[in-house]
């Protein structure tokens, strides 16, 4: 019981930290969600108009608008603000206090990261409600409450995978000062490979099959499939097995890098 309360406090503290910079928080929401939507919307409008068709690869233009609006938000639930904070702790020496206090460092960092996902979920819900109430009837019909909830569950599952991925990269800080490049690199990989920019059905079948074996589609493409009603039946036992495989593999690498890195650490202060 005490453990749960302690975890809850960590999440609340992180929520308070993020919300203390409210203007930045909302500008970020507007910049990321709004500009990605605009870029995607106009690209697909041009494609559908030039082809003169109503459906491409099973997607009507309305489905594409729905996808373009919701995918950046769903992705935000999975990746939060992209950085998990480990690099900063190592670089500034504030990791010392976590090593002294009897708390599992990885769990504390994850709970802080989870709080970012929870805030993003609020923004995602706002976009979903706007779609539901304001968009044209064909787009609004795509917004099913139960599918959306399951999509959020999938996005939070992706949130754990992303934490491991980014955490492993940030722990390179034990050996090398500048690791922001690695996180930006991960951003580009996710942009192309997750289905954030384009639904995976639009990729050549061999590429889509290959990507579905990677952890990236769990950060946008698969939750969006669920939100759209899983038209290709991709949410299968095979996918769950892929997820569990990545979960175990990334957790093992995370712990290995942490144990090796700790021995390298020589922080001062704080």
């Amino acid at each position, binding site marked *: 019981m005490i453990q749960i309360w302690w975890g809850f406090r960590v999440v609340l503290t992180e929520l308070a930290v993020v919300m203390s*910079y409210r*203007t*930045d*928080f*909302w*500008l*970020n929401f*507007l*910049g*990321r969600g*709004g*500009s*990605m939507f*605009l*870029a995607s919307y*106009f*690209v697909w*409008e*041009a*494609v559908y108009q*030039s*082809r003169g068709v109503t459906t*491409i*690869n099973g997607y009507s233009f309305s489905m594409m608008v729905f996808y373009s609006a919701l995918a950046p938000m769903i992705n935000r639930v999975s990746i939060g603000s992209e950085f998990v904070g480990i690099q900063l702790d190592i670089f500034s020496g504030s990791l010392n206090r976590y090593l002294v206090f009897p708390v599992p460092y990885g769990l504390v960092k994850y709970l802080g990261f989870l709080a970012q996902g929870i805030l993003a979920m609020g923004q995602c819900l706002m976009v979903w409600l706007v779609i539901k109430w304001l968009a044209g009837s064909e787009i609004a019909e795509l917004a099913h409450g139960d599918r959306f909830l399951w999509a959020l569950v999938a996005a939070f599952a992706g949130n754990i995978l992303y934490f491991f991925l980014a955490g492993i990269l940030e722990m390179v800080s034990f050996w*090398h*000062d*500048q*690791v922001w*490049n*690695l996180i*930006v*690199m991960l951003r*580009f*990989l996710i*942009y*192309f490979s997750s289905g954030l*920019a*384009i639904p995976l059905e*639009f*990729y*050549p079948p061999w590429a889509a099959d290959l990507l579905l074996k990677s952890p990236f589609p769990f950060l946008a493409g698969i939750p969006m499939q669920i939100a759209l009603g899983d038209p290709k039946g991709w949410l299968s036992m095979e996918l769950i097995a892929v997820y569990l495989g990545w979960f175990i593999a990334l957790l093992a690498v995370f712990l290995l890098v942490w144990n090796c890195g700790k021995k390298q650490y020589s922080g001062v202060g704080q």
Partner: protein
Amino acid sequence: MLRYLRLYFYFVQFAFARLVSFRLDFVTRVVMDTCFYAANFGIFKVIFLHSDELGGWNEAQVMVFMSVYFVVDAINMIFISSGMWNFPKIVNKGELDYYLLRPVSTLFFLTFREINLASVLNLMMALGILVWAVLRLPNHLGVYHHESSVGFLVLGILLGSFFLWAFQVLVTLPVFWTHSVEGLRGLFYNALILSERPDGIFTGWTRKTLSTVLPYSLIASFPARLFLDRDWQGSLIHLLVMMVLFSVILRIGWQKGLRAYSSASS
């Protein structure tokens, strides 16, 4: 002018010393930008699996447009981005005093001081991609539209670099009044995705806004038009008029910002 060139030579010397000290940073930056190029090319490749044209351009033309964006971005990464990144910190810490005292343009010193030589290899890669993309055009070089196409392409890249720099400075200037521009800069950098799309896809007020008030289309689309379009004259006039306008706005904004600036030692 000679004084500025000499000063810039010293900046390059410092940058080289930094590059030698952070060798792994050099490698990761190169890999990072390679991922950026690959991701963008990949996205357009997938789009062109489902369409023959995008915003009035075919695949070969869009590749030239993307390459122009890569070159402008690489120039920005080398000469401007590091300086711009530290701009708010310098203002907030009161370190701007030391820049104001120097007998050179403060804005020049502030934005061009930190050269990032690690991105030189990325510029070379971007230029290589641009040459490859141009050679893939059906009738490339002068034959394509007008005799000075390549010259106009270079001019377009320089103008695109100007707009990216000017826009970066403009979104950073509010730091003189608000002390934090993280949100605004985040908005600006996130919205850069709009300059990674051909302006021909945008319609209505979005298209007008992106080529005037928020000049995202002036960073790569209009510069590429100087080379790719038959009616390139209109794009050139638009770019030159907007350059004059943005120079004036920048100058006024910078002077007002300096007037609002106060620090413990000023």
